[in-house]
């Protein structure tokens, strides 16, 4: 592609509107383009410029309904284990049990401001679907969630939750019946109902303005991290560690340090770049790295570490794909990280050297799940367990802030089963049931 002139838009990584270097863009069917443009316009007006007090409204609701700020907890036992101070950013305490609500509430509220009358969203493990259903119930918006048939069957509690919040759940029967297919199907619904419908995408992926907008809604995480670090640590952390699936908790945890957060109303200085803070994006190493090109299968979801540039779901980014460009099935023990793409801004920040991509495998994540539960009394989501696991390899002096993007109640069955099958160190026995 021809060299493009880099224009600064105020954000550090958005080199021109909708682009992060060569990443990003708006690769969607024409039928959606006007909606995407309308949304980009609404994003600028409401989210960046606080038109009609939108951001004030969002900030108040995410505080009073969502429970922000989430605490920054000192992990005393882990700190002792590692010899450096570990702090946990507690997105597991956000309403719904994960960082997902920051984005879902932001987008559903924005859709209301835009006069939309219906919400659609995709979901994989069900976390984003649940958060969206929750926000829609709260804001009184009709809501339909697409979810692969396989996921519907293996994530029943989240399906229950969505239904209990009165969202329609539409099982997607094609393909492997997981996240990728759900996204495709939601795009199709949006293309059909684009005039009155807003598509609440679940991570910093998709066409512009989604990656920037989702980042901004999630940037409340790092905005708080900075303030809390100042108050509790007396300094900025040496490093921030977050898991990366699509990358929304990741960008949420990094944005203020990168200097790319643009949500209106941030405390002074909190959106200035903080180049001394190391930013570590922990991907799912699955069972091993690389892509089986012949089989079109990747036993991991490490698109930042091992993916190649390509176009998927509306944006140019790093992808797990065959040499020909077919998207492969990714794999991780953690459903929420199991995605072949990643947010374009992260891809850019990795190329620029600002974010370091690392990964831990399934077993290490399971061990970390048990370690945090046992030593700190916090059951992390399997996604977040990847970030926690990376502490075992971290070599700095701290303090380190780990983003605990969600709670692991949803993962209990999987963890118990997988821990037994893999003989994971530190997993408790469950013989209490043997009677």
């Amino acid at each position, binding site marked *: 592609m021809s060299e493009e002139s880099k224009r600064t838009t105020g954000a550090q990584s958005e080199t021109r509107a909708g682009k992060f270097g060569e990443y990003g863009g708006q690769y969607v069917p024409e*039928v959606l383009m006007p909606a995407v443009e309308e949304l980009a316009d609404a994003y600028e007006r409401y989210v960046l410029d606080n038109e009609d007090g939108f951001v004030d409204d969002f900030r108040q609701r995410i505080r009073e309904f969502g429970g922000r700020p989430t605490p920054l907890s000192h992990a005393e036992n882990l700190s002792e284990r590692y010899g450096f101070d570990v702090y946990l950013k507690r997105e597991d305490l956000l309403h719904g049990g994960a960082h997902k609500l920051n984005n879902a509430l932001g987008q559903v509220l924005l859709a209301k401001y835009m006069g939309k009358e219906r919400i659609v969203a995709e979901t994989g493990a069900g976390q984003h679907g649940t958060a969206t259903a929750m926000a829609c119930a709260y804001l009184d918006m009709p809501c339909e969630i697409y979810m692969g048939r396989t996921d519907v069957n293996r994530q029943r509690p989240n399906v229950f939750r969505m239904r209990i919040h009165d969202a329609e759940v539409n099982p997607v029967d094609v393909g492997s019946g997981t996240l990728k297919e759900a996204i*495709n199907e939601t795009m*199709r619904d949006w293309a059909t109902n684009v005039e009155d419908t807003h598509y609440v995408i679940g991570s910093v992926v998709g066409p512009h303005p989604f990656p920037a907008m989702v980042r901004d809604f999630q940037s409340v995480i790092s905005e708080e991290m900075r303030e809390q670090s100042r108050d509790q640590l007396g300094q900025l952390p040496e490093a921030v560690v977050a898991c990366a699936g699509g990358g929304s908790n990741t960008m949420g945890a990094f944005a203020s340090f990168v200097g790319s957060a643009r949500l209106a109303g941030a405390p002074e200085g909190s959106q200035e770049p903080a180049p001394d803070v190391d930013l570590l994006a922990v991907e799912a190493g699955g069972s091993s790295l690389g892509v089986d090109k012949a089989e079109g299968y990747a036993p991991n979801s490490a698109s930042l570490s091992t993916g190649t540039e390509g*176009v*998927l779901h*509306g944006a140019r980014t790093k992808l797990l794909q065959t040499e020909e460009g*077919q998207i492969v099935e990714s794999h991780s023990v953690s459903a929420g990280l199991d995605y072949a793409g990643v947010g374009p801004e992260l891809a850019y920040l990795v190329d620029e050297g600002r974010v370091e991509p690392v990964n831990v495998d399934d077993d290490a994540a399971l061990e970390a799940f048990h370690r945090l539960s046992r030593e700190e009394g916090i059951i992390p989501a399997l996604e977040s367990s990847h970030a926690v696991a990376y502490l075992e390899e971290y070599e700095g002096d701290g303090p380190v802030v780990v983003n605990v993007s969600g709670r692991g109640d949803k993962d209990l069955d999987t963890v118990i089963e997988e821990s037994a099958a893999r003989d994971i160190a530190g997993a408790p026995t469950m013989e209490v049931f043997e009677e």
Partner: protein
Amino acid sequence: MTRSEIRAAFDDGPALVSYVAAGDPSADATKEYVEALVDGGTDVVELGLPFSEPVAEGTTIQNAIKRALEAGMTPEAYLDLVRDLDVDVPIVCMTYYNLIYQYGDEAGPEEFVAAAADAGISGFVVPDLPVNESEPMYEACREHGLDLIFIVAPTTTPERLESMLDRTTGFVYVQGRLGTTGARDEVSENTPEALERLQDANVPKAVGFGISSGEQAREVVASGADGVIVGSAYVDIIADGVENDLPTEEVADRLEALAAELKAGARKGLPEPERK
């Protein structure tokens, strides 16, 4: 062929643009089906290169793509198939941008466009490449004398329409309704309106998304279209063949018959004096 040939295909009365997915259910079958469609009166073949994430397609074509991928269709095999086709109508490659972008040693559309031109492709339809992102693809097509065909949707704004028409050669793909591909029983009410706002464009206008019968083709042409684009209706026949294990020939015959019906219907849509 050169891009004038796609356009030229519309010179001779309303054109029938026929889509099938390459490799569904095999490259050999596709060859026979395409030839049958041309025998039935197809003026432009739109040959799908299957991509794993076909977001613009309805269930019918999604399933076709799945069958084609499972049968091993690849970009290389696609180009071989194109080279192999024995038809004298222009062939448009319909695919998603990532396959074009990945082809060859260097990222970018250049290499695939060159290879496609070499194999005998006359133009491209890339549903996930809106005009805003089309610059490199457009340049590559221009360099190799290929048409880059844009889809105009019911939602397309006047400004967007203008920038599309600026780059349009070959024909304009008029999306007849919101949503994705898929055969419907009725022509969208919005078709006349969609065509009306294109009346000043000096390229042919072909309407697609949902057309499945001669009667619908007639209606569309009567509304002012220069051509009709049909895909899912053919794919339904192919799917039926796969399901019932029908001989390739029988499926080909049915495709030819549908093409003939569509073509005849399209002609009937012309005002009497213009019919040939």
